[in-house]
């Protein structure tokens, strides 16, 4: 576990320093627009990292590093995920609160470890196993609620989001076994926080 913790903390510190730089009046284009921290969702027990948002604020793309401690997962797993979320509608509420009632998105997650393959070794005939064990594509729907705040004279936003997601191997299993499997057998919940540098 220790060997994974250090690089994880290093990445976190990178994101933190990025955040500090982000406080300067005119942020550089390459600095992230937000940071996210997520619980569950098949990309780690906790995952976090920077992301960007489109000009109209509906499309977010994040790069997340996830970690699953052995205590919660039976095996310590580190993964990295590229995730994109589209939240087309925004409803403003009182006191600078707002909700984005519907989000839909997809991700690709890579789990590190010698037991996982991206390209199967040559001692397998081609097509012997049709999926890669290291890369999992997934999809989700969800929603968000947030508030615009002013911190140190800077416009910021805090958002809470939830997602209901699944991934390719579970979808394939469900499609072929609609008698035994129910949709809630393949869908799981994730919760997250977003800190935006608006």
């Amino acid at each position, binding site marked *: 576990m220790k060997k994974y913790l250090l690089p994880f903390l290093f990445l976190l510190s990178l994101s933190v320093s990025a955040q500090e730089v982000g406080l300067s009046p005119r942020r550089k284009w390459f600095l992230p627009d937000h940071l996210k921290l997520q619980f569950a969702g*098949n990309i780690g027990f906790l995952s976090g990292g920077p992301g960007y948002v489109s000009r109209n604020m509906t499309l977010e793309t994040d790069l997340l590093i996830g970690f*699953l401690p052995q205590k919660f997962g*039976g095996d310590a*797993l580190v993964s990295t995920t590229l995730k994109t979320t589209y939240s087309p509608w925004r409803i403003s509420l009182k006191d600078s609160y707002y909700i984005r009632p519907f989000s839909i998105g997809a991700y690709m997650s890579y*789990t590190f470890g010698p037991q996982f393959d991206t390209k199967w070794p040559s001692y397998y005939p081609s097509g012997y196993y049709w*999926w890669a*064990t290291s890369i999992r594509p997934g999809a989700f729907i969800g929603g968000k609620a947030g508030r615009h705040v002013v911190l140190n004279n800077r416009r910021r936003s805090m958002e809470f989001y939830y997602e209901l997601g699944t991934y390719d191997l579970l979808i*394939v299993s469900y499609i*072929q076994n609609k008698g035994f499997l129910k949709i809630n057998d393949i869908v799981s919940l994730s919760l997250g926080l977003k800190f935006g540098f608006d």
Partner: protein
Amino acid sequence: MKNILRWTIPGLAFLFASCDSLFQYNPNEETLLDREKDLTAKNIARISQLPVADTTRFILMGDTQRWYDECEDFVKSANQQKNISFVLHAGDISDFGLTQEFKWVNEIMLRLKYPYVTVIGNHDIVANGSATYRKMFGPLNYTFAFGRDRFIFINTNSREYAFDGSVPDIGWLKAQLADNPEQKNTIVVAHVPPFDADFDKELEKPYTEALAGDPTVKFSLYGHQHRFHDGEIYDDGVHYYLTTSMGARGYMVVSTWKGGYKVERVEF
């Protein structure tokens, strides 16, 4: 806002109640409940409590991989059989080596009226599969005895180990065959049969000769090829039986008695 809360809170409460694994952290996580651990030892303990009749009847089935609906039908069919003591799963419990799949199959197999024991298949070794198999079922090679019969379960999935000569473990197999003071009928159970391309070619002869060299070995049981097949493949006195997959909706009923045995194919 209030309206939204009125719907989301009961909605979330419903979700919390209905999903058995509401939060998932990684497809390769190995999270098991205590009742999902050490199933081989637990089920052997149950089998050893069963009465021994003149004839022992058990079921050989396998390759449940991603055929849950069919596996449910298998359980219904198997529960109709008479005088069955236990069920042998010939491997490929899972398709992707995911813990979730092992749990689903176990959930279905628990509806059997009989205890079941397993041997590991090649798909069960993929990704974190073999680690999960060890936790959920137990050792990859093991034996147990019931009545006049003695079962040797051995991992024969050589390709998953890059044909490195370690699988199947011939030394272990020979030691188990030799350790038979009561001269019980020995039944070797594995996933990949020795004449399959996924079995180490270098070990095919040592393996089949070890079986043929033991007079207590009359027949041996396998899965993997998703078809019924049987024959005295090596003309050495050992009859090899392959059961088909759940997808092909078949299994075998094996009966053994003093001095004889019978294997029947069943389709459901």
